[in-house]
């Protein structure tokens, strides 16, 4: 396209950070927006965490003591919505914003203003969702899965719930478009697809998943809205609809959603383990194929969330076997990480510790997932605490530990200073111990028959519940240490970080100074043709 040369020195070009609030409100810089995402996610993590602690406090002993059952249900619902859409997803988008341009040698995200809008929709969405706690009828209490007909009985909160979900979807879709376009269009000239770092690869796949399923969720909640207010019969059997249809549509979104929350963590771990093993990632290309296979399979397994709801036997068999197939690519990834460490010169800094913990504990969550995939067994496990144990094992030591590992790994690059390694290790050990104290007993509770989403339980479950509650409080308090470590690092109290930060890590992000300057790679980085990326 002729005559289209950008005038690099025009006054409209962005050079340094604007002073004051405009820097954040009008942001177009991927680092600023990434920071906002990460801070927002941390705030939401504590909001959702507080709700989890209310749940665990109530469950500390049998009987009803602190909250009434309706409020308890509001807490389980809001805890899930906030953690899924407010903590885990924005944390990974924040990491994507910060790191993808640095890792592919791009100056910024491809569509910087839309990037800003993706972020600034989130505070709107979550203030709308949070405000429902103060409405007549209280916050939504029918579970984050919003199954009709129960969710249709929500009080004044109902339309607010629906529209906040719409806004979260809008934000995710714009974020995903930005990630895809950035990766496909903005890579350094010699960075071919298979030379891309694994974090970039897993985010590319995640972005495709987001684009494919967030609109489906929007459609599903729109049907709820019209069923409640405009007389449609999508989920009304008398009108020829079916409440089960909502579950199918919801889980068509919901199952890829769980991979949206874990694939970027796979990417993080694939960056960290090679660095601290001082070896290249074992089987880079097979990791790409494995992640792609997981993404594909995630679209054809959704009904394993609803084996007990009633479906033809052939359906149950198909979804059971398809689900178990996911263990194959996931196994490829776990073995590749293990093989990366094999005979490596390993050291155990905090990011590596979190990655190793991820490797072990996520695998436990994966195995309990396999147990749940087996139809006859699932009919026993369904809606029990075993399910709660399973998905918290993949989400807390899986996704959340992935985020923690990433923050420790890249924070010196962001701030120019190391975090306090001693405190980081203490944070790691506290988190890892307490996460197991919290969630491991839930396996036993579930197998013994304790149902999920209940504020009271039979006395036979008392011991394991009090252990889990104690662990939860310990885990929650340990995260305050994390905040302290981050603040310390941001205030530059640690040692000054070099450009490489770690011992010869691979990747373009380590070729820019620490802290990363406000603008990086304003011209494409030069990499000799054919050479592997540093």
């Amino acid at each position, binding site marked *: 396209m002729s005559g*289209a040369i950008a005038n690099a020195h025009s006054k409209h070009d962005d050079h340094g950070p604007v002073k004051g609030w405009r820097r954040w409100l009008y942001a177009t810089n991927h680092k600023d927006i990434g920071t906002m995402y990460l801070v927002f996610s941390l705030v939401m993590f504590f909001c959702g965490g507080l709700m989890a602690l209310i749940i665990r406090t109530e469950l500390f002993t049998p009987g009803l003591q602190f909250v009434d059952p309706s409020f308890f249900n509001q807490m389980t619902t809001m805890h899930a919505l906030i953690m899924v859409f407010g903590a885990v997803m924005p944390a990974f988008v924040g990491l994507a914003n910060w790191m993808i341009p640095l890792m592919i040698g791009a100056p910024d995200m491809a569509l910087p203003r839309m990037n800003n809008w993706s972020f600034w929709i989130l505070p709107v969405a979550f203030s709308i969702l949070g405000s429902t706690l103060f409405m007549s009828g209280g916050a939504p209490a029918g579970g984050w899965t919003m199954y009709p007909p129960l969710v249709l009985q929500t009080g004044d909160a109902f339309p607010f719930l629906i529209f906040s979900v719409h806004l979260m979807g809008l934000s995710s879709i714009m974020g995903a478009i930005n990630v895809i376009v950035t990766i496909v269009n*903005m890579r350094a000239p010699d960075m071919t697809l298979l030379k891309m770092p694994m974090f970039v690869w897993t985010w590319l796949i995640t972005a495709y998943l987001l*684009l494919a399923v967030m609109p*489906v969720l929007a459609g599903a909640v729109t049907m709820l809205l019209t069923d409640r207010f405009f007389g449609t019969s999508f989920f009304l059997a008398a009108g020829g609809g079916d409440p089960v249809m909502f579950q199918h549509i919801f889980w068509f979104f919901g199952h890829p959603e769980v991979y949206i929350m874990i694939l970027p963590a796979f990417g993080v771990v694939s960056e960290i383990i090679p660095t601290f093993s001082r070896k290249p990632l074992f089987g880079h290309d097979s990791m790409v194929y494995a992640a792609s296979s997981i993404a594909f399979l995630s679209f054809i397994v959704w009904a394993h969330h609803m084996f007990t709801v009633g479906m033809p036997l052939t359906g149950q068999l198909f979804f059971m076997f398809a689900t178990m197939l996911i263990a194959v690519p996931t196994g490829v990834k776990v073995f590749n990480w293990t093989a990366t460490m094999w005979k490596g010169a390993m050291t155990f800094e905090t990011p590596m510790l979190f990655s190793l913990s991820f490797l072990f504990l996520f695998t436990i969550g994966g195995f309990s997932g396999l147990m749940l995939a087996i139809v006859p067994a699932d009919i026993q496990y369904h809606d029990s605490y075993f399910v709660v144990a399973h998905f918290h094992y993949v989400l807390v030591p899986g996704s959340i530990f992935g985020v923690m590992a990433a923050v420790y790994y890249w924070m010196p690059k962001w701030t120019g200073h190391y975090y306090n390694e001693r405190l980081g290790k203490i944070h790691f050990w506290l988190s890892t111990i307490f996460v197991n104290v919290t969630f491991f007993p839930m396996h036993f509770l579930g197998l013994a028959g304790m149902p999920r989403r209940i504020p009271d339980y039979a006395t036979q479950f008392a011991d394991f519940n009090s252990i889990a509650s104690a662990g939860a409080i310990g885990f929650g308090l340990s995260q305050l240490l994390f905040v302290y470590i981050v603040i310390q690092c941001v205030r530059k109290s640690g040692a000054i970080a070099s450009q490489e930060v770690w011992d010869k890590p691979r990747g373009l992000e380590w070729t820019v100074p620490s802290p990363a300057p406000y603008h990086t790679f304003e011209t494409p980085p030069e990499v000799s043709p054919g050479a592997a990326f540093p």
Partner: protein
Amino acid sequence: MAHAEDRYYVPHGSHWPVVGSAGLFFLMVGVSIWLNGADTGFWVMLAGAAIVIFMLIGWFGEVIGESESGRYNSQVGMSFRMGMFWFIFSEVMFFSAFFGALFYARNMAVPWLAGDSNNFFTNLLLWDGFEGSWPTNGPGNVGGEFEVMGPFGLPLINTAILMTSSVTVTIAHHALIHGQRNLLKVFLATTFLLGFIFVFLQAEEYIEAYQHMNLKLSSGIYGSTFFMLTGFHGMHVTIGAIMLTIIWLRVLKGHFTPERHFAFEATAWYWHFVDVVWVGLYVFVYWM
């Protein structure tokens, strides 16, 4: 990938995103309050919608100005194109949810209510005598007896109109590429006029359905899927026709060159997308 230029383009900050967020806040809160039965919500909703429209005009206006002053390089153009493509993909998935609901209801929910598969007793005990043909408003006869919207008449005319408009927009595109500005103006105007005629006829069809056929949004699963699918499609046609109108006004102002006309292309893609969705609608909602 385009790397013709030696320097990347990074735009300056913008206040439009937060204006848009504020607009969405008032829009969503307003609709919610209104749906909960308080009329004040309606005005809050209108205020929110006004802010969103103000944002769209301002943001697009700024981008158009920057584009016309030649600030964007070809890499930015490629980013815009990819962004539009994946946006349309997400729209396709949104419609898929409603098509999925239609297929599930027709092939599973309704036959099962009628006793198909292993649901003999469901039918016998709950909905005895329900036979489960399509179209249906369900065993509860929700919304009362209704007439079915057949595939001929207005829907067929509308199909012809949209198909024609897809052709005219392509002719306009070729005219743009070959520098035939007058041909471009005529065929672009034809396209959006056909679009608005489509919306008008669709409104006529709805009036006919509501007044003479007792076919309403509340007419069971058939009414639900019929009006939600055609309604969301009609909304997209309206948006597309407005986009085409704006493109036409830009053409009148002398915007676009045979080489550089992303906005035109994006709008044309969007127009083909609503066209393709209509074909699906015509086949599965009206015809089969």
